[in-house]
Structures are given as C-alpha cells and as structure tokens.
C-alpha cells in the first residue's frame, strides 16, 4: 500500500510544481529578452505560454502542420497539437487559458491570450510581447481590437481555444514545436 501512495503523492507533487494548467500573468519582460527569447518565439509560443525557441508552428509537433493560411487549416493544425476549441460559453475547463486565433487569409495567422487580469495580450512574431493593439489601446476583446499593421491585416476572426498554460512564464504545458 505504501508504494502506490508514494507514487500518487509524487505525481501530484510534479503536477503542482509544473504550474499546469493555470492562467498566465501578463509578464512581457520574459518574452522580450534579446537575443535568445524575443527573436526565437512567435505569437503561437506566446499564446500558449510555451517557450521553445523554434518559432513554433501549429501542427508541427504533431506532424500535421497547417497547409494553408486559413482559419480552418490553422485551427485544425492547432487542434492536432492538443489545443482545444473552446466551448460556446468561452469558459475553458480544467483551468485552461483562453486563446483567440485570427488570420490575414493567405498571408499569416496570429494568436492572442487572456491573462489573469482578464485582459488580452499578444506577441507579433519577433516583436515584443504587448497588451496593446495597433492603435495603442489595451485589449479587452480580441474580436474588436485593431488588428491591421503595415501590409498585413488580420481581419478574419477564427474563434476561441483552450490551452493548458502555466503561471510560470514560458512553461505552458501544451506540446508545441
């Protein structure tokens, strides 16, 4: 009886120590460290709060990378990685974090994440992580945030997703690569 109890306690300990699944705090300084972090982690890394230094792509880890820059294709690839489509209530179960996906169809995709303060933040590629949109406003709703920059405009809103994030920056628990 003693050994199974120890194994169970150890597993629980590991889960607690890993900080999974928890809503992240807004802590951009972690992601804005150059040259190691900022240039090597994109919006998908940031959205999932998972530092990989590989400029992670949806579906790459699971061998099902997106084939087209459309909502359907990127959504399918992210789901293959284990990210779940959020229920209609947008309430993520099991303490998972809420993410939002937008695309500039045929050009690019972009992810936002919701932080513990209830507001949203994002990391535009190799740029710095920020809680502001393109007109400098804080983001209370990614659907209404300004999403057009130079030469790109992420006008298609693809939906919400749930990701097993962490309260420790960069240590999200989704398997992305």
């Amino acid at each position: 009886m003693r050994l199974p109890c120890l194994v169970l306690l150890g597993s629980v300990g590991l889960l607690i120590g890993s900080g999974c699944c928890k809503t992240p705090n807004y802590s951009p300084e972690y992601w804005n460290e150059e040259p190691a972090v900022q240039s090597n982690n994109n919006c998908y890394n940031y959205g999932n709060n998972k530092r990989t230094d590989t400029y992670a792509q949806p579906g790459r880890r699971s061998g099902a990378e997106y084939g087209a820059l459309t909502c359907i294709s990127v959504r399918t690839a992210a789901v293959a990685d284990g990210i779940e489509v959020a229920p209609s209530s947008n309430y993520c179960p099991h303490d998972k974090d809420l993410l939002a996906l937008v695309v500039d169809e045929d050009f690019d995709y972009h992810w936002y994440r919701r932080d513990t303060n209830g507001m949203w933040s994002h990391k535009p590629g190799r740029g710095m992580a920020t809680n502001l949109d393109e007109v400098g406003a804080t983001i209370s709703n990614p659907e209404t945030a300004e999403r057009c920059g130079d030469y790109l405009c992420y006008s298609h809103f693809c939906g919400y997703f749930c990701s097993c994030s962490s309260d420790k920056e960069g240590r999200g628990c989704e398997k992305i690569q």
Partner: protein
Amino acid sequence: MKRYNNLLAEKAWLILLVIFFLLTASALIVSANNNIKVTILLFSGRPDPTFTLCDEAFLVKMKEQFDKMVTLQREDESSIIPTKLGYKGIMVSNPLSRQGLPKRMNIYNGLIELNRKPKVFLKDADNKIERLLMQEAINKEVLDPKIIERMNAKQKFRE
C-alpha cells in the same frame, strides 16, 4: 589474425570515405551558419522571409554606406523594432563580421541598431540600407508577390 588484418585493410578505404563525407558535411553546415542571414520581420505566426547575402559587390556597397553613417545618441536603449503587427523592419546576422559589417543589427525606419553592449544606434539616411536589403529580398524572390503588391500600394520600398 592475418585474415582479420586483411579484412580491416580492405575496409579501410570505406572507413576513410565515411570520415571524409562526415567532415565535408560538417564543414558545409558550419559554413552555412556563418553566412550573412537577412530576415524581413513581417509575420506574426508563420516564419519570416529570409535570405543569405553572399554577393561581394553588394556587401562592398553596403559597407560604403555604413562608413558614411552618423552615430546617434539615444537615451532610450529599447529595441527599434516596433511592437506591432505587419512589417517591423529587417534583422541581419553576420557571425563572422564579414566585410567589416556588424555582427547583429536591426534596421527600421531610418535607424540602425547594433546589438552590442552598450547598444549603438546609427542614422540610415533616406532609409538607404533598408531599401537596399528590401530590394535584394524582392530580387531574390523571397517575398510573396501578393505582399509586394501590398507594399507597392503603399509606395514605400520601390526604387
């Protein structure tokens, strides 16, 4: 023992060939990593367009421009790469400081940031270096034609 030595002698050429290929492959990989790599900072999710700068004449032209540049005094040491969606500038990695050009630099909107400690900022008059590199990206066809169409519509990077 004699039979073993004969076998070893016969296979020696194969072993040497394998070692030769491994060394050549390693040298090629190291060489590729030491080239000047230019990244157009454009996308948020998908990989940014990149290309390698090898043309000596082009590098000489770039160095000539650099030699004319003025150093700027900036109290704000934060990156010149803007925090926004879309085009954010150009990043250049030159591990071996080829042609005497900087090892790492960011270029955007008339400014060049040399990633050293402390940082150094230069004035890119008329966005000359930025235009040069963007034109090279277009020439090397690393930019999606649809992106170039959008750029042309803003009349920003055409010579």
